[in-house]
């Protein structure tokens, strides 16, 4: 037993474990040093956690799109960040118009509904045609080809929207009812963060129930497992792939609005970093696994928010917050070293076997 284990270890494994081990060691050391120093109070930590949850739930929503598309097509849709961008960028013009006519201030709830509706429709439409035009003709091509196409589509969409709306950063109008803070159990929370977290949770519950409980949701899972067998059940495989892109597009569009509510600005390049982060989240959770992508997103948001202060401050790094992206990708490396299938990736591994 021990012998078998010893034989299966290669020098690469040992090097990887050493890299992983030293990263872990630094994290633990940094955290202990920070906590001993006591520079941050409980209030700070609570703020970090809530911000992290809000940011993470946005990643989680985007990540479901990556993971579901991977499920049905076994490809990474690198243009998904642009699907995310297209919605809120377009909805900005609706929001600005409603702001000018005071509709936004007088009927903030209705206005928000309109913003969501516009953003989700645009993202959904883009996702739908992206699949039809760019990916469907390549069905059955070697895996590298759709991947390169996806990167091309990503650039195409970025510059399309830059051409349409210009390259400037547009400031989203402030929705007054979402400003300010609430006291919940004696904890001070910014209103828009609560709204972002609750809306994201609602959307994720809806999406997961759809996939698990409905006839179409089950068919999407069937197509993820075996396209030929699905066709033999009378399932329209191409239709289900389209549906998957539509659902992913809806989630991305909604995530885009939440992102705009949090950061109050949009521009043509806004999809790039969240897109890569959400992809990371999907891999963290075990690509192909929907609850995994959700957990991965929330985990990544939390780590990014808490991590710089917790892990790096104690190490004496001067501007730890600049390094939050480095932390996100370090997490990816750690997970890939210690658990290559992702946090919840067992099922996928079993499937491949």
């Amino acid at each position, binding site marked *: 037993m021990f012998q078998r284990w010893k034989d299966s270890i290669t020098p690469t494994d040992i090097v990887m474990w050493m890299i992983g081990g030293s990263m872990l060691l630094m994290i633990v050391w940094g955290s202990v040093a920070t906590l001993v120093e006591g520079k941050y109070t409980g209030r700070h930590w609570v703020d970090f956690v809530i911000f992290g949850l809000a940011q993470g739930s946005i990643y989680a929503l985007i990540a479901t799109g990556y993971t579901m598309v991977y499920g049905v097509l076994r490809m990474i849709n690198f243009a998904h960040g642009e699907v995310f961008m297209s919605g809120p960028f377009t909805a900005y013009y609706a929001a600005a118009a409603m702001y000018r006519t005071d509709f936004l201030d007088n009927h903030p709830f209705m206005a928000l509904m309109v913003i969501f509706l516009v953003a989700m429709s645009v993202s959904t439409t883009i996702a739908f045609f992206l699949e039809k035009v760019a990916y469907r003709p390549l069905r059955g091509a070697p895996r590298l080809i759709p991947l390169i196409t996806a990167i091309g589509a990503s650039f195409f969409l970025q510059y399309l929207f830059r051409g349409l709306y210009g390259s400037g950063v547009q400031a989203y109008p402030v929705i007054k009812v979402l400003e300010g803070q609430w006291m919940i159990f004696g904890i001070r929370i910014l209103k828009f963060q609560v709204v972002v977290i609750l809306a994201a949770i609602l959307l994720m519950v809806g999406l997961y129930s759809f996939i698990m409980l409905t006839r179409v949701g089950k068919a999407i899972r069937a197509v993820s497992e*075996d396209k*030929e*067998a699905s066709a*033999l*059940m*009378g399932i*329209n495989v191409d239709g289900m792939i389209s549906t998957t892109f539509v659902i992913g597009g809806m989630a991305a569009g909604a995530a885009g609005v939440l992102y705009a509510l949090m950061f109050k600005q949009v521009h043509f390049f806004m999809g790039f970093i969240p897109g890569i982060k959400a992809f990371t989240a999907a891999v963290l959770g075990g690509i192909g696994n929907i609850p995994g992508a959700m957990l991965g997103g929330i985990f990544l948001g939390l780590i990014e928010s808490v991590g710089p202060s917790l892990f790096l401050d104690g190490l004496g790094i001067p501007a730890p917050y600049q390094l939050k992206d480095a932390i996100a990708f370090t997490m990816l490396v750690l997970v890939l070293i210690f658990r290559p299938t992702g946090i919840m990736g067992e099922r996928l591994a079993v*499937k491949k076997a």
Partner: protein
Amino acid sequence: MALLEVDNVHAYYGKIQALKDISITVEKGEIVTLIGGNGAGKSTTLKTISGLLRPKEGRILLEGKDITELPAHQIVTTGVVQVPEGRRIFGQLTVTENLDMGGFTCRNKKLIKENIDRVFGLFPRLKERSRQVAGTLSGGEQQMLAMGRAMMTDPKILLLDEPSMGLAPVLVDLIFETIQKLNDAGTTILLVEQNARMALGIANRGYVLQTGVILLADSSENLNKNEMVRKAYMGES
């Protein structure tokens, strides 16, 4: 008019020809078997019928209607359902969810429920495991599920691709009994088997396939007596 007619079909995988001028007819209510060795083209024949592979030449007719050009998922709605080789159940879906997928084309919830009960009646083992994830079923149970799944739409004709493959003798008997039961209840069956003895025991007629060509077509009785068949497919010397 025959229920199913495969009419001078030629089929290719890329440039390799897998079927050469195949013609098969199946009358309503029959059990017809297709026997032949590895790579003879048995699965390919079923795939061209169910629409997974387009024939380059020839036609497939169901009750006289041409279904050659229909996509696979629409062929299912015409009443032709295939149980693929190697079962191909959805391993991550539960037993019930697999059956739901079998009934995907049926929008009537009550009918789906009735069909599920009918499948559970035929295979009580599946009922006990209805909430289990199908990937953890035993091989025999998976075969039962694959057949049950195909019965969910009450097909006119069932195409079975080696349903006895890899099963213990007791289970092979059970599967063949079930095929007989389904046939008695009115389902027409086209059965692909390597187990020629069992297949000819249950079928009315049979076709012998070799390297994409039909060698023989006759009643089961005559094929059973045929010396070449006995030698090549029943292991007699």
